[in-house]
């Protein structure tokens, strides 16, 4: 029994729904109790989809348990087929239905429908959403892909884009951006899947020369199988950030047998100059905490130092499947690593590390809001405002431009920070004055965001501040004061000091000084 407050990932069947909802002419029949239809609103509300997910739920109730839930399931499959006429039907059980052991696979096959039936085993009590998405995609590919055949002679090489799903963080725009990038390089996209693919498209996955794995969480098992079954190599680099996009171009060119230096693919890449221009000097060494799914956390970890000259103080993920990679990335950056799906653990880590910027999911956005730290969202789970109307990819060169804007915007502008330090005693720049462009009142910034503050972890008795030291602390700009206070108290505690004097403050400053 695991106690859970907020979850980063939904159950595995939600992963299956993400896959089929992104697709065309594929229908999922989910054996599930009344209430599980809540999943529809993730797509219709958060992603603003104008169509219901192509999912039929059996919505059995207690009275059905005494009767025949198996028959209920068969009726649901038959009616779903007749009503929607899909090219393929996927059948699965949600957590409760798994306990009933009705065998959706056998029941659906017994109906002898004229379309392929793909059964899923979703292991609801062991697995989670991203695994469910990966498993569904893999089963669809296994179940629908046509036998290996001779590839046609083509002028331009062809690849598939694998991994985007419904409800994915910026998947819609990443797909466009990467397809454009590949087109500029001279590579055509055969099938993009699951997002936008029909069952017939899945059947021709094997026709491409190689595969591009955009989101390893979803696409890796399928890409590995396609490599084995069709001899298609796949890309390892996820093109987020300028450096990774360049590496991706080189990798894709290699797989396609093209010379990447022949074409200018960088076009409107602005991040390098934006980062080098002098206004960005103030970004140097800003302490950043990174948390998200493995794809985006790893990418952000790579980018924060190499492309923003930030300092990563913490790097973490809720994708336990990729814990090793994330640990290595954190170690390489000399940052603390956190593999966790407990939101409170993440909050405690953020509070302890005093970052100046948090890059995370919607959970971290709330954590950061509560702690008064600027934040940008880089990964699912996200909320409705992270499905922007405008084109806003994370991948490719335009994606890097988007990263620059969206990560720097929450911070105080360089000149503003400079002026605040210079004029901090002026009335306009007093302690509580918030950054002007954030348009929040000082009260709002200082006030906790919710009436229910977290219970602080028990700590040993902190050293007390002398009046003079407290006054000196107030002279430190407010946006670094929390860290100064924390560092000084840590410094004092480690040395067993009972009181903090002005000199303790400066000793700590020298000790921690970056």
């Amino acid at each position: 029994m695991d106690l859970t407050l907020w979850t980063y990932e939904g159950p595995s069947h939600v992963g299956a729904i993400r896959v089929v909802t992104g697709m065309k002419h594929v229908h999922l029949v989910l054996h599930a109790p009344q209430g599980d239809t809540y999943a529809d609103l993730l797509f219709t509300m958060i992603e603003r989809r104008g169509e219901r997910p192509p999912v039929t739920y059996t919505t059995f109730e207690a009275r059905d348990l005494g009767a025949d839930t198996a028959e209920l399931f068969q009726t649901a499959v038959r009616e779903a087929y007749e009503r929607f006429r899909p090219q393929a039907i996927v059948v699965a059980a949600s957590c409760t239905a798994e306990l009933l052991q009705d065998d959706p696979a056998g029941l659906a096959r017994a109906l002898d429908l004229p379309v392929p039936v793909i059964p899923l085993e979703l292991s609801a009590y062991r697995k989670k959403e991203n695994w469910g998405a990966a498993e569904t995609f893999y089963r669809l590919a296994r179940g629908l892909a046509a036998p290996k055949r001779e590839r046609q002679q083509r002028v331009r090489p062809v690849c598939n884009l694998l991994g985007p799903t419904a409800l994915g963080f910026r998947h819609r725009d990443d797909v466009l951006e990467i397809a454009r990038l590949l087109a500029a390089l001279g590579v055509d996209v055969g099938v993009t899947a699951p997002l936008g693919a029909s069952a017939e498209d899945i059947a021709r996955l094997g026709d491409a020369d190689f595969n591009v794995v955009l989101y390893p969480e979803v696409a890796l098992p399928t890409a590995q199988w396609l490599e084995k079954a069709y001899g298609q190599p796949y890309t390892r680099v996820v093109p987020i950030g300028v450096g990774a996009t360049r590496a991706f171009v080189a990798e894709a060119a290699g797989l396609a047998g093209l010379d990447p230096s022949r074409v200018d693919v960088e076009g409107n890449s602005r991040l390098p100059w934006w980062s080098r221009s002098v206004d960005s000097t103030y970004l140097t060494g800003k302490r950043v905490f990174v948390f998200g799914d493995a794809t985006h956390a790893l990418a952000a970890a790579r980018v924060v130092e190499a492309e923003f000259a930030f300092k990563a103080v913490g790097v973490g993920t809720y994708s336990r499947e990729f814990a090793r990679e994330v640990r290595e990335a954190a170690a390489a950056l000399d940052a603390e690593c956190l593999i966790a799906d407990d939101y409170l653990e993440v909050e405690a880590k953020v509070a302890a590390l005093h970052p100046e910027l948090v890059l995370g999911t919607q959970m971290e956005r709330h954590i950061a809001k509560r702690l008064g730290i600027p934040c940008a969202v880089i990964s699912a789970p996200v909320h409705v405002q992270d499905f922007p109307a405008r084109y806003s990819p994370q991948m490719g060169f335009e994606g890097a431009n988007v990263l620059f804007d969206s990560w720097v915007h929450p911070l105080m502008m360089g000149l503003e920070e400079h002026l605040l330090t210079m004029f901090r005693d002026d009335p306009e720049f007093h302690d509580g004055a918030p950054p002007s462009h954030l348009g929040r009142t000082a009260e709002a910034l200082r006030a906790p965001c919710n009436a229910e503050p977290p219970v602080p972890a028990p700590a040993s008795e902190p050293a007390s501040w002398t009046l003079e030291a407290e006054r000196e602390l107030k002279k430190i700009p407010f946006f670094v004061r929390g860290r100064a206070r924390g560092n000084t108290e840590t410094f004092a505690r480690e040395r067993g000091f009972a009181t903090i004097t002005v000199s303790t403050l400066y000793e700590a400053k020298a000790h921690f000084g970056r």
Partner: protein
Amino acid sequence: MNARVPLDLRPAPDARGCGPSPVLRERGQREVFCGLTSIVWLHRKIRDAFFLVVGSRTCAHLIQSAAGVMIFAEPRFATAILTERDLAGMADVNEELDRVVARLLERRPEIKLLFLVGSCPSEVIKIDLARAARRLSATHAPRARVVAYSGSGIETTFTQGEDSCLAALVPTLAEEDPSVGPSLLVTGSLADIVEDQFTRLFAECGIPRVRFFPMRAANDLPAVGPNTRFLLAQPFLSETARALEARGAKRLAAPFPFGAAGSTAWLRAAADAFGVAPGLFDAVTSDARARAETALARHRTTLAGKRVFFFPDSQLEIPLARFLAQELGMVPTDVGTPYLNRQLMAPDLALLPAATRLSEGQDVERQLERCRLERPDLTVCGLGLANPLEAEGMTTKWSIELLFAPTHGYEQAGDLAELFARPLVRRATLEV
């Protein structure tokens, strides 16, 4: 993402009038929340209660998806997620539960009342949460009480979760001192501000002992007995009403307090039961009633004559259809409800236009076909259906707001009408 192949619709039974008229009973896919969703408002109401769902990752994800939008902190609800170890019997479920509860109470010293909330998986594998609650209550008394109820989807839809929760509390209520006079128990979650408004009105009418259930503080449980008269503020409390009646309390029948007329009729049921003079009642309510009527008049121009179609959701459908028809001149075509309790709904049903078609239960695909055929001016439905229907050119009101927003009583009558008017005004305003 699928082609739609329309099926033949079963002929609808003639709607000859609502009281005894035939009801279309539907079975098929139900597009409703389960009872766990009630935790979203119940935990805001009882401020020192904690709701521990014993369930699966799906349960946690459901509550988060329904509520995460609105609140985000360390919430007073959580899910004890059953894992393979629990199912395979490698871990003793009761020991696990004791461990989780002990940790929780240690971490949250302010919690006085802990609900163990049953879910679909806990019901299917037959975890006896009632027994666990008795054991845990004994362990943690007097620090915290533990009460169990089921919010599972196999037993409850959406608002029935509150019914199940309150019904579980009724046996724990103290026996009311029979020597004191009659008391009034307003039953069903109301926004605090609405409670305060009703409290003032009852006090001005001279009704002495008025209590609200659920209560704001866990240790402030109302007493109940044969002298208790109870007035339902929410229509979905069948089990709770039965449990209160079993304790000797008497239910005051009334339409539910939506709008000016609804609020008046509801308040009057209490006034009559407590022998309030009609003149005093009118004097007390006339100002607020006039304010409500003025507020409603503003929206009547938008709403009058418009046809409204309700998908089943919260059991509020019938009282709200009554409000829209009687007080704003709307024409309810279809009124779907997940579960129809004729007795509790009788006063509202009697006020519905005779041509209204009632349906109980749900077959969402057939309802959608019916809705498309009827092309109502406004469709009231859940969040899963609203945008898809809007994309088909229909105007919708998402129903969950009708529960989460303060809507009862005179002072909220205009706000309630506006919830229905806004989508129509918006569609008329937009030029894109």
